């Protein structure tokens, strides 16, 4: 890994020792095995990612399928082990946490999944679903459990409670299922919520409601939220900061409006170009999409990982050297040679 990145550690949204969640040079590599035991290389799902998330702040992670979003998320949740680097959440270092402590670490982060029906065990009713995290985390007092369930169901607007509790997931609508998922994520009163495309499987009609609900919960509980999506049209509702991932790396990091209105990285440009904007004028517009496929994460391209698909690729630079993070405007970082003072030329 190039260490060019070390130079820009001054930017407080890349490193901050006091922040609630700190992702430090995180690498998540999966080992490939030949015949079940021989080593055959690594899938570099997350490669040298760093950012921090403060209490009460929301950050969005955007990228296409296979860019490493899910691996990053699962590592933050403590479901994957970092290959290199570390995740520090609430002053707990994930790489040093094992066994019982790891389970406690996991229970402090709320997890909202993409497919609400799949995320709920089909053989449990809403009451058991909501009680499970509390039973597991040692809340033995039945009244306390009951109180929390009532409170959270009130908050996610799943009422009347008595009618909801005995229902099984298949008896609920998609929106209600997602509310149960959110309630379950919130029931342990976490400081961080990881939302993995929380609305992508829902009807358009309930998406906004769910997003508003998440926003409301975030503000009321002063939650940190990591919002993961491939759909740029929903991020606006949500977060202060946004970063774009490509092939396991962060290619651009900025404030929400900054990135959406003034994108720098060619990949971000392409993503925004491809995202749907509810505007009648766009109906007949033929979109430019980057040619080719996302690269293999086993043998990522040398230099900038986007260079085989990049329309502005500079021979001899982009295909040789890994790009540094360049701060184009304050708190707007982009990993692209185009913005390098010596080598680049702006688009």
């Amino acid at each position: 890994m190039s260490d060019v990145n070390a130079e820009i550690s001054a930017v407080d949204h890349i490193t901050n020792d006091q922040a609630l969640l700190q992702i430090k040079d995180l690498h998540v590599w999966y080992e490939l095995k030949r015949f079940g035991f021989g080593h055959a290389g690594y899938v570099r799902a997350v490669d040298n990612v760093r950012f921090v998330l403060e209490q009460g702040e929301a950050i969005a992670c955007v990228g296409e399928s296979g860019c490493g979003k899910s691996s990053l998320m699962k590592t933050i949740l403590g479901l994957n082990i970092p290959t290199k680097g570390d995740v520090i959440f609430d002053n707990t270092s994930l790489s040093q946490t094992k066994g019982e402590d790891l389970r406690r670490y996991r229970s402090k982060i709320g997890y909202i999944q993409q497919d609400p029906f799949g995320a709920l065990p089909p053989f449990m009713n809403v009451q058991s679903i909501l009680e499970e995290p509390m039973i597991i985390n040692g809340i033995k007092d039945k009244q306390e459990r009951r109180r929390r369930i009532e409170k959270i169901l009130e908050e996610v607007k799943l009422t009347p409670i008595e009618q909801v509790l005995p229902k099984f997931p298949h008896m609920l609508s998609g929106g209600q299922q997602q509310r149960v998922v959110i309630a379950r994520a919130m029931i342990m009163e976490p400081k961080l919520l990881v939302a993995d495309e929380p609305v992508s499987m829902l009807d358009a009609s309930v998406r906004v409601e769910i997003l508003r609900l998440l926003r409301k919960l975030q503000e009321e509980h002063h939650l940190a939220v990591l919002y993961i999506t491939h759909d740029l049209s929903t991020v606006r509702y949500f977060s202060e900061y946004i970063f774009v991932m490509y092939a396991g790396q962060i290619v651009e990091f900025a404030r929400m409006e900054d990135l959406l209105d003034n994108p720098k990285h060619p990949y971000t440009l392409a993503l925004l170009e491809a995202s749907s904007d509810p505007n009648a004028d766009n109906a007949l517009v033929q979109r430019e999409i980057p040619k080719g496929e996302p690269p293999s994460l086993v043998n990522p391209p040398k230099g900038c990982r986007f260079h085989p698909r990049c329309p502005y690729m500079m021979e001899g630079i982009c295909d040789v050297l890994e790009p540094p993070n360049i701060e184009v405007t304050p708190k707007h970082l982009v990993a692209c040679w185009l913005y390098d003072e010596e080598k680049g030329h702006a688009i």
Partner: protein
Amino acid sequence: MKGILSGLRQLRQYPTAIIGLIVIVILMIVAIVTPIVLPYNQAVKMWRGGEAVWRYYPRNASPAWTNWFRSTDLAGTVIIDSAKGDVEPVIEPISADTREARFSFEFDFPYDTFPPEIILFSSAAYKDKQPFVELTWITPDGREIRAGEFSSGASTSVRFDQDTRLQRRLERETGIKGISVIKGLFDDPNKEGVQVLQGTYRLDATALLFEPESSLDLAFVSYGKVYGIAGTDHQRRDLTIALLWGTPIAMAFGLLAALLTTFTTMGIAAFGVWIGGWVDAVIQRITEVNSIIPLLPILIMVGTLYSRSVWLMLGLVILLSIFGLGIKNYRAIFLQVKESPYIDAARAYGASDMRIIFRYLIPRILPLVIPAIVILVPSYVFLEASLAVLGLGDPFVPTWGKLINDANTQGALFSGYYYWILQPAALLMIAGLAFAMVGFALDRVFNPRLREL
């Protein structure tokens, strides 16, 4: 759990399942009631007790109900035992020490064939002087025939057909040369040849007891060619005992084996899939090796060399089936379930490995397993029967398979004792069929895809 209950409710749509359930319920009731009414020790005693226990029963008698299908009714069995209170003697004092006891054995004989044997069992308690008994046979048409006299020992049996004086008396009475005692006693004198006179017979026994303390019990047995609900075998044993006691044994064996093997294989598969890595690999290899170890030869070996206890066999079957090929099937399903988002969610809120296995993985496939268990029950019932037929049945406990084995070694089919083989075989088939019918219906309820087929 709700899903399972509603699935069971759906069973009502399948008439075969209802019939199967009714049969299973009946078998279960028999399996529960039998050990209560006839405790194990008593059953073993009645089955293994020896001649003394069985001597009142006829040898190789068909079940009584077979007479419904015959044009000439075979002789039924008559047992009248004063020790059991079937008949009360009338006692009159004759002198200071001597009493006279009159027993009157009265019975209906509506059958068309002669009984093969008649015996009067006498057991007396005395100090020096044996009680003396005089017998009189009274036919339905009122003829009185002196049927001999004897002094009763502690245990005396009077075999009527060995009494040559009585035989000669009957020759005169009937006018038929060489008539056997039994035929003579039951012959109808008004008909040509030797034919049974139907009606109420009586045997009067007048006993003289010479001591004040002495007592006498008499048991009159007219052995028949049919007996009881299930008939008897070559050792005069009542097959009802074996058929009844075979039910709890078969049910216990089948259900325990099916339940325990299914749940252990399922648990091991879930454990292997969840832990993964070398644990899974070891489980897979053990399963593969175990699946080529033949079950039956091992059971035969253990049965021949060590013990044939049905419970030992059950334990062995379970032990050898724990790493059965079922693990492969369950593993395939668990590998799929393991990837469900709700499992990820459970890990994310800190569920432990054991909790995930038992609360999240296994409940997911329970609906698939229930039909499998039900369908598996008869195969273990049959396995127990097969072992018994091969001569490896439990030496003490009477089971359905043991009956078939006995019948086989005694050449039952060759001798025409069809009831001996057909009754246990029919029970085995009915039990198997009932479980299969319920199992297949459950399979349709829980695996809706099968409904279209």
